[in-house]
């Protein structure tokens, strides 16, 4: 049985301006001990997806359909109370913004203690010892003293680590990390990434890491899902995405990014235009107004929504170009420019 499986998840928000299709038919699977990286443009639905898995859109105005199976249980149809009871132990999340996830009036320690005691029948004293232990593991210096600090007394990096300690305090089986290192300096980021790797190894947890940083996903992920306009446009192993990407948007991402491990290129190869509106999603392929290869699909790009199709062994692509055309473009037009 697959540990986590999403089937055609849709999360739509009715707003005054119209229906926002934040997530529009997303499916993927994740096994224990594996890491899935999710990348994509700002507003492409990454955070909404993770909040839906945690059940945090339940009871709100979001319209949710599809299925989320976690360890044999379906969560979209489950009650709010039930999903809440799974949070902490079965699944936990590291939020994009640590301050919003922590309560300003309680000490960091109290917040970890409370989270721990919901799932573990232990005394306050035992829980506090555990909290100190966790803070030490995430690299907070003098954890026995810092456990009594308030969130605002921590630096940004320490807060992020404290939140990670909180998320990990009950050894969750599924950990979702939403931009866990975006606000951090590279040296602190490196510490946090090491930590997540260790914890995953120790507990065989399933990990979803959401980020716009292709370097971070390349370091951590087994599989990578690329989102654009609420949909998965490419999915594959880390090698598929970095070595043999087949979607024009993925090419665009790779070309936009200067790389330290390559010779300096004369020019970056940006994607033209700006991210799509999710209310008036472009017709056909949502990427078509920005896609340099749209003319090669004979007008289909702007009229027909392409399906997500397997190109080879678990590598999925949503594009009207044929497999041969895509591979040819990558090999002759894109790859040489990236490596020049």
């Amino acid at each position, binding site marked *: 049985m697959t540990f986590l499986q999403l089937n055609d998840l849709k999360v739509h928000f009715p707003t005054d301006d119209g229906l926002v299709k934040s997530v529009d038919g997303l499916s993927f699977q994740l096994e224990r001990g594996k890491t899935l990286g999710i990348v994509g443009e700002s507003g492409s639905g990454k955070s909404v997806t993770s909040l839906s898995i945690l059940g945090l859109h339940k009871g709100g105005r979001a319209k949710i359909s599809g299925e989320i199976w976690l360890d044999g249980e379906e969560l979209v149809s489950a009650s709010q109370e039930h999903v809440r009871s799974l949070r902490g132990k079965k699944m936990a999340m590291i939020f994009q913004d640590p301050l919003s996830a922590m309560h300003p009036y309680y000490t960091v320690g109290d917040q970890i203690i409370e989270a721990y005691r919901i799932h573990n029948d232990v005394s306050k004293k035992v829980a506090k010892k555990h909290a100190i232990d966790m803070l030490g593991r995430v690299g907070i210096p003098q954890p026995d003293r810092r456990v009594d600090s308030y969130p605002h007394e921590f630096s940004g990096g320490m807060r992020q680590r404290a939140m990670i300690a909180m998320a990990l305090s009950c050894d969750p089986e599924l950990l979702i990390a939403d931009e866990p290192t975006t606000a951090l300096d590279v040296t602190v980021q490196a510490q946090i990434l090491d930590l997540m790797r260790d914890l995953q190894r120790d507990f065989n947890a399933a990990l979803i890491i959401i980020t716009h940083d292709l370097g971070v996903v390349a370091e951590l992920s087994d599989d990578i899902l690329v989102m654009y306009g609420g949909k998965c446009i490419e999915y594959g192993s880390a090698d598929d995405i970095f070595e043999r990407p087949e979607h024009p948007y993925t090419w665009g991402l790779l070309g936009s990014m*200067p790389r330290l491990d390559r010779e300096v290129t004369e020019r970056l190869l940006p994607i033209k235009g700006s991210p799509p509106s999710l209310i008036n999603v472009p017709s056909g392929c949502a990427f078509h107004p920005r896609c340099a290869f749209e003319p090669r699909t004979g007008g289909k790009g702007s009229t027909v929504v392409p399906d997500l199709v397997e190109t080879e062994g678990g590598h999925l692509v949503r594009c009207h170009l044929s497999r041969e055309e895509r591979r040819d473009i990558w090999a002759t037009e894109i790859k040489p420019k990236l490596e020049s």
Partner: protein
Amino acid sequence: MTETILSVEGLEKHFPVTKGLFKSQVGAVKAVDGISFDVRKGETLGLVGESGCGKTTTGRLITRLIEPTGGKITFEGHDITHMKQGKLRPLRRDMQMIFQDPYSSLNPRHTVGAIVGAPFRIQGIETEQGTKKAVQDILELVGLNPEHYNRYPHEFSGGQRQRIGIARTLALKPKLIIADEPVSALDVSIQAQVVNLLEDLQNELDLTYVVIAHDLSVVRHISDRVAVMYLGKIVEVGERAGLYGSPMHPYTNALLSAVPIPDPKQREGRERIRLTGDVPSPLNPPPACRFHTRCWKAQEICKTQEPPLAELAPGHAVACHFPENAPSKTETPATVA
């Protein structure tokens, strides 16, 4: 010799920390603590370092948005360190700053035309065919549609807003632009557009840039020379190839090795330096070499003697007693008497 457009010597900014009813000073944040560097005409100097090391403060000092506590700033041969606002005015045209956040630095109630045209009005400058035409030309230059003249910032995407900010900066044809994190708030796909735009404009308009950023890959792409800051000090400065190819300061080495590489094949086997501990507070920086609390090479001398910024290879200077990759006498104290 290429001409020096800006020269900074021993520049300092100490922000007073006050306490109590009478605001007595109890200390100072040494945000910038004695830095020196030159910027050559037509080049791009990158300024990198971790959050809080004093990059933005340096930018604001150079553009005289804040008053230095010490040191000297020379722009095109003029000492502007403590120049009065009135005398500064013409110089303000020549030196402009692009701000960190494209969302908050544009007034939402003003049209694009008003925003980009403001520098003309403030400086009281008449243009040949009127301000509107001048503004529309600039909009076109930065890749915006001249018809955007009457629109408001919220109608634009992040990348377009950053272009509006750049257009405003260019209005008065500056010679030197200080760009503070010009792309960090933007989506990856948009970052590349703005980076290319900055490079094109530099070629077309013969601009000199100081680009402040924490993203080492972006800085490498865009800069001719790079200065690395740590806790208010410049610890290393050099030509791009030398600094990235053979970084000398342990901190620079740590920074570079911490950057995640977007290549899953390089996951294993990559040599990584892991720093422990947080950046110390600039309120109370460690004595002598400020990096010694986190440096794996630190010796007794590092805690007692501040290493000077010394040129160890042509155009490549480092402040460290035991630099890496130093040309000849590696592992020996680099201090010159």
